[in-house]
């Protein structure tokens, strides 16, 4: 099958769905898109002329073996259940979620719990640069245990300026992506409290360290966190989803309730649920995640942001070393 005749399904109607549609169209792929709400479908049909916008998941999956799930982590199970009626064993599913579902269920686990597909891949790394739309080199990480999944992702972007880095460590890619949003919340809080650039650097380092500790405990590879899906994701300048998280963090630090802060931004802030679930998991597994737990407490209004962040900044750096060597 050549890429010119290839069909791809996109389930979800957010910004990522639009960016992906544009990119796939440019490579000659026929895009079939489904979104739950009619007004979103109408809007997308008007904005994306060459995309077939479908009213049902079944219609969107017709003749396609490649499925993109572009909904947030907490909606993945629900959409996967709908998709499950049309899923087949040779389908490849890629998702771009950067969070977890209730019970710290990772995105690939949420998808797998609802349908028969095996070949699931996570898009990660500095993925948001795809939204840039310029001809500058754009890079994403695809994590999947199946080489067929990553080969397909590479085929889909061949001839574009997008470069795909591959890893079999899907757990690492997902944990790194999810925890980076919690870190963004913390950085937003620190910025609002005017703690300075040093604090920002310390919080980002600590966030990465906690992602590593948790990821390794959940079966991820250490090297993933020092690669593009980990460090590589922290360095690029902030863009929409990261900015959303910083904005929410900043508003909470300035005294707004979580509800007020969430109402003030558009789009999903996956880091909030990740912080709640991460803190619960930390207690359950006995894994030390001080930053995640502090963000959780601040978001719940159980502690003062300044005091909690000061406490985090005072923590001994030895803790991080221990975390990397610990299993």
């Amino acid at each position: 099958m050549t890429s010119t005749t290839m069909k791809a399904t996109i389930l979800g109607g957010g910004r990522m769905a639009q960016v992906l549609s544009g990119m796939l169209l440019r490579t000659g792929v026929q895009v079939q898109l489904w979104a739950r709400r009619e007004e979103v479908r109408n809007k997308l049909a008007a904005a994306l002329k060459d995309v077939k916008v479908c009213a049902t998941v079944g219609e969107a999956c017709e003749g396609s073996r490649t499925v993109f799930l572009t909904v947030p982590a907490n909606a993945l199970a629900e959409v996967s259940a709908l998709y499950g009626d049309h899923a087949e064993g040779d389908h490849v599913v890629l998702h771009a979620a950067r969070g977890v579902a209730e019970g710290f269920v990772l995105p690939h686990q949420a998808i797998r719990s609802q349908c028969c597909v095996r070949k699931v891949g996570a898009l990660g790394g500095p993925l948001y640069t795809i939204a840039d739309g310029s001809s500058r080199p754009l890079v994403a990480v695809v994590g999947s245990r199946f080489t067929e999944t990553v080969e397909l992702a590479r085929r889909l972007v061949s001839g574009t300026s997008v470069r795909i880095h591959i890893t079999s460590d899907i757990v690492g890619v997902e944990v790194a992506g999810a925890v980076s949003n919690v870190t963004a919340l913390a950085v937003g809080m620190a910025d609002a409290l005017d703690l300075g650039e040093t604090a920002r650097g310390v919080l980002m380092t600590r966030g990465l360290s906690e992602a590593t500790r948790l990821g390794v405990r959940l079966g991820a590879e250490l090297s993933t966190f020092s690669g593009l899906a980990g460090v590589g994701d922290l360095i690029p300048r902030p863009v929409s989803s990261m900015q959303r998280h910083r904005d929410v963090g900043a508003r909470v630090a300035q005294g707004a309730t979580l509800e007020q802060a969430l109402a003030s931004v558009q789009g999903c802030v996956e880091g909030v649920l990740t912080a709640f679930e991460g803190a619960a998991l930390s207690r359950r597994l006995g894994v030390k995640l001080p930053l995640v737990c502090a963000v959780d407490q601040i978001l719940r209004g159980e502690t003062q942001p300044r005091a909690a962040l000061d406490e985090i900044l005072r923590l001994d750096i030895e803790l991080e070393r221990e975390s990397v060597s610990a299993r």
Partner: protein
Amino acid sequence: MRQEDQERILTELRSRLVRDIGQSADKGTTRVDEVLADSIYHELRRLKDEHDRKTREREMEFWRGIQKRMRRASDRAQLDLVGEVASHYSREIAGYFDMRVYRAVTRAGEPLLAMLLNAMSPKRLVQSFPHLPTLEGTLTVQGETAHLRRLHELGTVILVPTHVSNMDSIIVGYAVWKMGLPPFLYGAGLNLFSNPILGYFMRNLGAYTVDRRKTDPLYKQVLKEYATLTLEHEYDNIFFPGGTRCRSGAIERKLKLGLLGTGISAYVNNLKRGKAQPKVFVVPATLSYQLVLEAETLIDDFLKEVGKSRYIITDDEFSKPQRVLDFAKQLFNLDSRIFFTVGRGLDPFGNPVDDDGESLDPRGRRVDTSRYVMLNGQPAEHEQRDAEYTREVGNKLVESYLEDNVVQCTNVTARAILTLMRRQNPGMDLVRLIRAGGKVEDVELLAVYREVERLLMELRGLAGRGGVRLGPVVDHGTAEDVVADGLRHFAIYHTEAAATRRGDRIFPTDRALLFYYQNRLEGYRLEREEGIKPALAPDHKSLYRGAA
């Protein structure tokens, strides 16, 4: 196996291997001369340690012949030599199932096991007659037996039992017969064939030979292809997925998946041929003993070189006929039970299957499994993809083992005593505690009862949620009943009892054995509230780091 199938399988095996190696040579991924040189190197090296002079000379002659002819062989002739080596290996592996022998043995009914056990020593067979131990009343076959029978009708079954003892293959073979199923093929270590009489029975009851001393990659390829072909010819198989008996006594957590992957190969080949019943099912089964014949040797091996256990043990209790007979007699004289629990079947991709042999997704919808193996619209094997599917099957098997393991009194009693010892000797390295003993040697009987009570509460709660199965005394008895039954079993067979009661105290007389029997409860997190670290690492193949 039927003689005509045997011949067909061996011929096909040879041509498949020659074809596969020829194809990878054409692609440039393999060199035929390297494959041959590898085989010659590995085998000549191994043969240096072969004790049997006749075998050594015969084998040496074969390999030197191959070596000599290889030097002046053309590419085509080298491939023929590969075929010759493949045939050489496959003839050694292949079992020969004789229906007449099988019928004769099974007609004997219950004394089958006794015959097999006594077959190791004809003299003892005569001496013991007519007081042969039988399995009647000792072996309980339970779980999804009807489901297994149904899957056998709908496709080919790979039965995958847990493996702790060399007795397993005999017990599983017997359980299969008890369920009214035809004999399953299984791979048995070469050492089990060393007794001519037992070897004769095993061979005729479906065993084929696996020589784990052979490290030649081609041998492993032949072995896998042989298993694949038997599955394609609709012979149900038994695979012991741990690869060897579990040394620690714990439930296997890390399975060797190479042979299990043959299920996918057979399924793909069946689809390619358009077979009417192409399906292959993987069915887990769990064997639970009160006492394990080779416990002393196995745990000693585990502790001696944690993580570097001998892969092949040839001098254990199984090789001593007297021990086997004593074990069988004494165990069967107690109201002791061995449980063989059949789990729900899976497809080779890790999906559960229903009684119609249909695969189900997590929401119970039927799945067309042929789509898992499609490449460009055709069924085809894909090494990396299939290995990943098999890994998932492995994970599901491990879950099933934990759920279907039947906890016995020896496990609970040993766990309670060792937990108390660990509490009495805080901070002491676990291996040191087991090897040298702690500062306080014995434990109070009442404390053991209290600990057993706590364990029973945890276990019964877990069993209620379907997380484990319980033996009758563990299920309904009091803590006193459980300890009494556990100690009674410890006293009857092992060289030294694992623990003995003296008045109101219990003395752990063989701490290694206690460790062995308590390990069967690893993986259930029974001490999560107690602040005691697990004894074994998550893979159950080594000690937990810093276990104290």
